[in-house]
């Protein structure tokens, strides 16, 4: 016969695990919390650029290197969905958008991808949050989300 307290602890542990798993599934399903993808690498990712796919969908191909990101400034209209691709030319860099749910690694020979929506206008700071050398603290970029062009 299992001890009463032991049984209660086991039940609690299973209920909590279920709660956590359900919360994560809710965030990924209903709220579309994106999980970072790693894409197969090819040379085209070494060209920094901004692509417009359709009216409200953009792609930004970021290239990180000591100690800057390219494109350093990207202009995106309000309400856009943006696919971000990040790679690095030298060492491992971080890619974090302040106050957004984006936290990627720029790895040489690898591509990290995530998708994010910009519903609020503003200047979104991108910082490198993986120590990458003496210029690390100045390594940043901006995504400027402005009102749609007239």
């Amino acid at each position, binding site marked *: 016969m299992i001890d009463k*307290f032991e049984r209660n*602890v086991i039940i*609690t542990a299973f209920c*909590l695990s279920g709660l*956590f798993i359900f*919360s994560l599934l809710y*965030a990924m399903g209903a*709220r*579309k*919390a994106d999980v970072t993808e790693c894409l197969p690498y090819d040379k085209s990712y070494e060209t920094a650029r901004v692509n417009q796919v359709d009216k409200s969908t953009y792609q930004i191909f970021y290239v990180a290197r000591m100690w800057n990101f390219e494109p350093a400034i990207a202009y995106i209209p309000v309400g856009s969905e943006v696919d971000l691709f990040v790679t690095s030319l030298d060492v491992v860099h971080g890619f974090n958008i302040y*106050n*957004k*749910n984006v936290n990627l690694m720029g790895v040489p020979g690898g591509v990290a991808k995530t998708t*994010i*929506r910009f519903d609020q206008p503003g200047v979104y700071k991108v910082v490198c949050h993986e120590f990458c050398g003496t210029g690390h603290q100045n390594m940043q970029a901006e995504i400027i989300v402005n009102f749609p062009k007239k």
Partner: protein
Amino acid sequence: MQDPNHPEKFVPRGAIAFFVLLVAIGLVIWFGIYFLMLSRI
């Protein structure tokens, strides 16, 4: 002297309180980060 046929009922109140508090703090931290993440989507 205690009668071995009728042992005293022992309830580990301190351990229960500790466990409940531990779980509560864990939930606050976990869901704190979780809802911060949701608000940044």
